[in-house]
């Protein structure tokens, strides 16, 4: 069962071939046997999952419908789940049981999805390797000892290892797409404002966006259908109608103009990855698309700009973790300042503290204009690059990441080098555009991701374009050895 897609599983559930309880048990068994080695889940909700599965079975018997009804998934541990530990990968929230559900969680609950557990992640979503988790690194199912990418590394690894049918993730600078690429799965970061951020623990509010991580574009479409939509509790939620993502999957691609930014295929990209990308582009040409070379001239400014905007917002967003109302509190504080400094100093890991300090500095008196304001202006330039590009093309394609998954520990001591893993994904967040990563031909048996970037609110188009490739190739169908 675990090799089936969501739509196949939904069919089986409705046809009475198996129940959601059976399906849930099967995944729980897989989790029990594989999670100790992979470490992709922080919490496993066995009892809750079985209850939800039973409820789903009752709904199915009552004639209720929907592709996610009874489908077992995992949530990135950044989404608040009522009554269930929500750690955000941090010691700070190791003791935090959320008193409410995130919008995404309640939407998926309503759709009948069964929550198997909460996925490991880089602490507060800050990282590109999942090594920054209080709960230890996650192993890439394709190669033990390699990172799964980050920050949604636990979600990506769980989907790749078939420990769940699909997962949720969040993406602030590439945190859905880069791990999707490293783990050989399909991940979509929607347009900023497409998915409500309510109850999703904030890293950088103007960049964060939740999205689906699945084994195919079709599965991602089913998941996004439930996640997307207006939510009055999030002021940045867009009041835009949600199209039927599944029905748009089969549009043909004749005449599709694909922009290939020359900046994405130049220096710094592994040659074998470039070849894999080219192979996929060739497939698109065969499907009737046309390739157009484009330029995104401010691409090189993406990382520096991001490392001002995101830390600035995070420095403020993470001030609420102060040991007073919830979360970690240091022992025996001698005064208020000691309470703050030690609770935060001991509760946060090194990377989180680095970013809080960078952000604090960038916003502080005398530096605001040179850092924060300058970054906001460059953000405008980067956004304009895309605006101009989308006047010429329908979708932009290139690599998701400059390399395949690297070894655990390889970049851990060099934060700046680690930041460069997100070179192709970051600009999409700065502009607020939707982006996707889908598996293409592996390099040395390690997955490679093709990145698809769409215009604002063009998720349906992206899913359609991804799905069409997945109809004529089977790179997305491969399972890592030992997890078939």
């Amino acid at each position, binding site marked *: 069962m675990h090799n089936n897609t969501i739509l196949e599983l939904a069919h089986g559930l409705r046809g009475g071939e198996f129940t959601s309880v059976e399906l849930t048990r099967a995944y729980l068994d897989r989790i029990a046997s594989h999670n100790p080695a992979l470490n992709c889940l922080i919490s496993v909700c066995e009892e809750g999952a079985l209850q939800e599965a039973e409820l789903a079975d009752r709904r199915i018997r009552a004639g209720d419908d929907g592709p996610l009804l009874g489908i077992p998934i995992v949530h990135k541990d950044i989404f608040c789940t009522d009554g269930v530990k929500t750690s955000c990968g941090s010691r700070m929230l190791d003791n935090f049981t959320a008193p409410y559900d995130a919008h995404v969680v309640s939407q998926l609950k309503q759709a009948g999805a069964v929550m198997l557990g909460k996925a490991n992640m880089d602490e507060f979503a800050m990282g590109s390797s999942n090594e920054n988790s209080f709960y230890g690194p996650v192993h890439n199912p394709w190669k033990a000892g390699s990172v799964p990418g980050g920050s949604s590394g636990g979600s990506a690894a769980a989907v790749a290892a078939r420990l769940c049918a699909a997962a949720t993730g969040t993406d602030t600078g590439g945190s859905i797409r880069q791990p999707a690429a490293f783990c050989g799965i399909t991940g979509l970061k929607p347009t900023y404002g497409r998915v409500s*951020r309510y109850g999703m623990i904030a890293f950088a509010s103007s960049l964060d966006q939740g999205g689906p991580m699945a084994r195919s574009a079709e599965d991602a479409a089913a998941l996004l259908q439930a996640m997307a939509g207006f939510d009055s509790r*999030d002021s940045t939620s867009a009041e835009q109608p949600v199209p039927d993502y599944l029905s748009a999957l089969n549009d043909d691609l004749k005449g599709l103009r694909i922009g290939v930014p020359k900046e994405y295929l130049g220096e710094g990209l592994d040659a074998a990855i470039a070849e894999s990308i080219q192979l996929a582009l060739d497939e698109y040409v065969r499907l009737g698309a046309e390739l157009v070379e484009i330029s995104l001239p401010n691409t090189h400014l993406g990382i520096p700009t991001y490392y001002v905007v995101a830390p600035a917002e995070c420095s403020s967003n993470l001030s609420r973790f102060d040991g007073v109302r919830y979360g970690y509190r240091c022992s025996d504080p001698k005064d208020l300042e000691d309470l703050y400094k030690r609770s935060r100093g001991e509760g946060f890991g090194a990377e989180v503290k680095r970013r809080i300090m960078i952000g604090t500095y960038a916003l502080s008196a005398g530096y605001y204009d040179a850092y924060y304001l300058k970054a906001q202006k460059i953000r405008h330039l980067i956004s304009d690059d895309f605006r101009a590009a989308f006047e010429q093309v329908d979708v932009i394609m290139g690599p998701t990441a400059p390399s395949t998954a690297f070894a655990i520990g390889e970049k851990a001591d060099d934060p700046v080098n680690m930041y460069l893993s997100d070179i192709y994904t970051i600009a999409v967040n700065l502009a607020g555009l939707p982006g996707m990563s889908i598996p293409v031909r592996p390099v040395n048996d390690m997955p490679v991701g093709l990145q698809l970037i769409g215009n604002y609110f063009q998720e349906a188009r992206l899913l359609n374009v991804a799905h069409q490739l997945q109809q004529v190739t089977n790179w997305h169908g491969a399972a890592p050895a030992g997890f078939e």
Partner: protein
Amino acid sequence: MQWETVIGLEIHAQLATRSKIFSGASTAFGAAPNSQACNIDLGMPGVLPVLNQEAVRMAVTFGVAINAEIAPRSVFARKNYFYPDLPKGYQISQFELPIVGKGVVEIELDDGTLKPVGVTRAHLEEDAGKSLHEDFHGMTGVDLNRAGTPLLEIVSEPDMRSAREAVAYAKKIHQIVQYLGICDGNMQEGSFRCDANVSVRPQGGPLGTRAELKNLNSFRFLERAINIEVERQIDLIEAGGTVVQETRLYDADRDETRSMRSKEEANDYRYFPDPDLLPVELDGGLIESVRAAMPELPDARRHRFERDYALSPYDASVLTASKGLADYFEQATKVAGDAKLAANWVMGELSGALNKAGMSLDASPVSAQALGGMLLRIVDNTISGKIAKQVFEAMWAGEGSADQIIDARGLKQITDSGAIEAVVDEVLEANPEQVSNYRKADEKKRPKMLGFFVGQVMKQSKGKANPQQVNELLLKKL
């Protein structure tokens, strides 16, 4: 040396919305600690602010009332600092682009001249919670019920030159926000709070260094604290010292201002636009609808009272000091049909009784309707003004309406001329000497002498005889 005082005020007015500025929690005062602090007010992880439209409408109402520029686009920013009553570690406020820009109000100086005071800006922000310093085993308790209550911070230009002017300005703003119905103005509960920026300089010289005075929770303290601070600064400078820019707390018990050392450290608030909130864009529609629904403002009402009710400028100003009092007066007048009489009673008996009982107008046991009903009985000669005082006391004691009391106590005025004539005759018969004196007396002295007979008649009738009729009859018979 001739010193000049320069004062600017920052006023925080709590807006009278039902729910908080960014959450659906209640703003009601006095609830059990933290029972009105929802996950947004508590700064729980992942929750987000959504702006209350009524807070926006109220801010715009204030702006329109003081003829200020209303920003077509205003932006919320985060003011970052750590404090236990600030759950998120930042206060959502407005910094570069406030919703209300420059405006002006007029204050009346002691000599009766008018002085314009500039309002630099007014912006929306959220209130903080409260730290309770009672002893919890040497710890401080934090109640976040107040956190997230909408505030309008009204910042003045440094236009005031004395504590009296500062008080006049603060009272003016207090009056305006109450008239607009956007703030209850309750200073004891902290709904209306003033901070004063005070500096001194040699007459006409450059601005001196200012101190910010806090904890001025009454107009009296505001005046007192400024005067003390001015003295302190002058003494300091004259003794060769310099004023440092700092926050000083007014201690009413000791009648002094003292430095707040805990806030001494250089603050760096790291303001930046709140990414969880989008720019507030106001179309002309809202501003126009606010303008159309604008209630009558204090100055306009004062002028109307002078004009329509023929009240003296003084009476009109007393009666319009608060919206509640002005409303009360107008209602009573409407029932009684005599504005001058109503004005005298509202400013006299009613205010006196309230003062004596230490009560506010809303708590008055005698409603405007009830007072008007009683005044109507004076107007229609059912009772005299003197008897009315008895009736008022009984109404105050809760004995019922004026008519009920008049009936129950038999206070109805005697207007039957036959009955009055009988009493008059009785009095004249009983005082032959005074009658003959009166008749012999000079014309000029007679009115005064008449008073004796009137008094006797009223006494005999237990005050119920109609004084006018008594006068007429006496004159005739004498």
